[in-house]
């Protein structure tokens, strides 16, 4: 048994590793400029400020332990080029020509041309500005040739002819097949994934794009979501169990109950639609003054402290919306299971003894049927997180779901992927825990070998 558990724990670590590689990869390739979002700078800032910024956030390091690039790109130099559009221009030029040294030389000449002081010649200044905006927005070499030919001024003639000569030289070369062969570097622990992963494993997620630390954001939101969801889930389980006991009380005479049909209709009702309808009916003072009892929005502490009425006003509707689909899916599950269990011999013998049917349901059948339900407890936290995304954004509750949704809308990737990581870790460890519990409590598995399921 200990061997099986050991294998599971051994498998847990690579799974977690692969999951975090996937999430980190997505975060790295997410839309938007990472440097600009992290440091709040744009292309007009001084190069030293930029270099300081990327050094602070380790952005000058490689993304992963191994970096692979074609022969004609020096990724380490490429990472320090800014702004993002210029980086794209340079990378494009390198791919078109296959000549890294020539490309870098070209970049130096262009930088020299652009960074000179032209404040005395207004016309030239305009032309150079147009050139810079092209140079900084990732355009191809051909576009620059036309632009350069238009500039005709004694002060920059030498430099421009140099650039043009170099450009013609560069356009004649193109990468050969052997240039595409990968150049593999081992970066050691000086890479961004290592920094991210070694912090994330102890739930330390650094800074969000909004300037606050991700941990503080999560800490401010987690309690509300947990409380909301725990109440909703407990309510759903209690309601589903009592409903199923009630509807199964005459299981012998009638195998079907009206609630079965209704439950499949209720299951088709999406949470968000229910929320809209409930808000329309019960939080709509202007239209239905008599019904509009509830409020929408965060419950804030007033000077008089927590008032129960205020809590009820804010959290009743979201709890109903969260609990509604869970109730009916548990009901359906239990009901099917109880119908199957009812044919078992132990039920028949219990009935033969004369035990009342409601007691058989409560004490014998229900505990047996509820067992498989416990497997979902493993993924409960991430499920709750997913469920509260919609409800919290509708009811404007600043919980984890709302945080995640806002992070997605405002492109705040560290928050989004940190929440995904937490949810993933919770689910995976939930699976591991329930597996171990099964091994400990289920004698059938204890005897036999293991099967990774």
């Amino acid at each position: 048994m200990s061997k099986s558990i050991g294998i599971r724990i051994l498998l847990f670590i690579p799974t977690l590793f692969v999951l975090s590689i996937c999430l980190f990869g997505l975060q790295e390739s997410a839309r938007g400029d990472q440097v600009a979002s992290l440091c709040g700078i744009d292309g007009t800032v001084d190069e030293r400020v930029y270099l300081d910024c990327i050094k602070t956030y380790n952005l000058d390091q490689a993304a992963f332990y191994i970096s692979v690039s074609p022969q004609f790109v020096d990724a380490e130099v490429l990472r320090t080029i800014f702004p993002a559009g210029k980086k794209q221009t340079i990378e494009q030029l390198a791919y078109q020509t296959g000549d890294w040294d020539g490309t870098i030389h070209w970049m130096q000449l262009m930088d020299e041309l652009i960074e000179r002081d032209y404040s005395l010649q207004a016309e030239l200044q305009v032309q150079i500005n147009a050139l810079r905006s092209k140079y900084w927005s990732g355009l191809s070499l051909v576009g620059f040739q036309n632009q350069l030919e238009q500039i005709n001024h004694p002060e920059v003639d030498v430099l421009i002819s140099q650039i043009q000569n170099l450009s013609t030289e560069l356009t004649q070369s193109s990468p050969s097949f052997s240039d595409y062969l990968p150049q593999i570097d081992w970066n050691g622990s000086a890479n961004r994934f290592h920094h991210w992963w070694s912090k994330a494993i102890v739930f330390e997620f650094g800074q969000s794009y909004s300037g606050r630390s991700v941990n503080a954001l999560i800490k401010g939101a987690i309690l509300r979501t947990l409380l909301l969801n725990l109440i909703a889930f407990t309510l759903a389980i209690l309601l589903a169990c009592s409903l199923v006991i009630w509807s199964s009380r005459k299981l012998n005479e009638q195998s079907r109950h009206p609630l079965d049909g209704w439950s499949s209709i209720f299951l088709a009702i999406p949470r968000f639609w229910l929320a809209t309808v409930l808000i329309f009916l019960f939080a709509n003072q202007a239209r239905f003054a008599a019904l509009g009892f509830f409020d929408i929005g965060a419950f804030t502490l007033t000077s008089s402290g927590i008032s129960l009425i205020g809590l009820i006003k804010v959290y009743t509707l979201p709890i109903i919306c969260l609990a509604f689909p869970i109730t009916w899916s548990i009901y359906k599950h239990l009901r099917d299971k109880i119908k199957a269990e009812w044919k078992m011999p132990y039920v028949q013998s219990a009935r033969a003894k004369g035990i009342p049917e409601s007691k058989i349901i409560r004490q014998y059948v229900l505990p047996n049927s509820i067992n498989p339900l416990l497997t979902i407890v493993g993924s409960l936290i991430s499920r709750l997180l997913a469920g509260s995304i919609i409800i919290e954004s509708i009811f404007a509750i600043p919980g984890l779901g709302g945080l995640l949704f806002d992070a997605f809308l405002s492109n705040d990737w560290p928050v989004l992927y940190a929440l995904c990581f937490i949810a993933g870790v919770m689910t995976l460890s939930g699976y591991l825990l329930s597996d171990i519990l099964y091994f400990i409590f289920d004698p059938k598995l204890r005897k036999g070998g293991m099967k990774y399921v």
Partner: protein
Amino acid sequence: MSKQQSHIRSFQSKAYAFAKFWLKVIVFIALALEFLASDKPIVANYEGKLYLPAIGQELFDLGCNKRYNVIRRVDWQNHQGFKLMPLVPYSAQSLDFANNGFKSPFESQRVESWRYRHWLGTDKLGRDVLAGILTGCRISLKVALIVGFVAGLIGLILGGFAGYFGNRTIKWSITQIVLTILLIPVTFYAMYMLGKSTLMVTGDFTFKTILSLLGIFGISISGLWLFQKKLSPLIPSTRRKLVYIPVDQLFNMLIVLLSALPVTLILLAILGVFKSPGFNLTMLLYAGIFWIFIARIVRGEVIRVKEKNYILSARQLGLSHWKIFWRHIFPNIKDQLLVTMAMTVSSALLLEAALSYLGIGMAAGEVSWGILLNQGKSNLNAYWLSIFPGIFLIATVFSINTFAEQEKRGA
């Protein structure tokens, strides 16, 4: 049978009948949308000639119906000659400036005749809600087809593979395993380099690029196959020690990895990468996640079926794996596959509606039930924007679920 029981049984059969009827209606609306809701007439007489503007215009936009250039800019609403308007004389995008600003279905509307009335009200810009709902049927059918087929295909292939071969059927030598493991990164690097260099040199992807990417993939797969089947038996060292490939276990690890996050979270995490994901791409992403639910069921079913005696005898007769799978296993898991596909489609519809409702995933200008509901969210007093699309959504999901359940019971 007691009285109540017969009453309930009739509820179930009624639900099944309703489900079949409703699904037919949705498919009909989705296919015949142009004849049901369009701001152009079905048949019209323009300068002595008969035209079919409602569908003809679509063909013209595709570039294969030059004759319709003449009627491109005709104002059909004020057209005096003969015209036969569709049932709803508005399309989902047509703006009715006389009736903008949330006209309720019940209040008086400024329309020429009852024929032009907005039966289910209008939205802020004066767009007809009924036309929007009918257009949403087409979107829903698209969702169902794309997600159902793609997810079903992936689920069938991977689940079938894992279930059929299990952990102890395929045997490879160490050389074969090492070569395969090496080939995977090489192939990915080649595809990445090809894609990136085309993107860098020409500026965008063309059909040719995608073809050559697929070509590289195909070459490496067929090279692998050639090696496994033809070359490795010739090399003596590859026959020395054979190891089982735990296909099923690898499959299970993939499933565990993919189910570590709930579907909504995976979708948000992946959608963050794309600048403007279109409808088709989003649907493919849905399919790329939902296949795990199908694959699990397929795997279980294949394992159940492959223990049967007729499969053993087929194997004894020397039938190939391919033939055993398609002739003897697939027909027996087909019904279950369809049921699971239907359940997957219904949850994909719900998810699509939920994400559109939050304003994620759909491009601007698209109309679906979720987008109508989104408008209803921001204007709660315009209840017709929430109630009617919601009823359509609920009825469709309920129908698919009921249909699937009934089929499962029959299967």
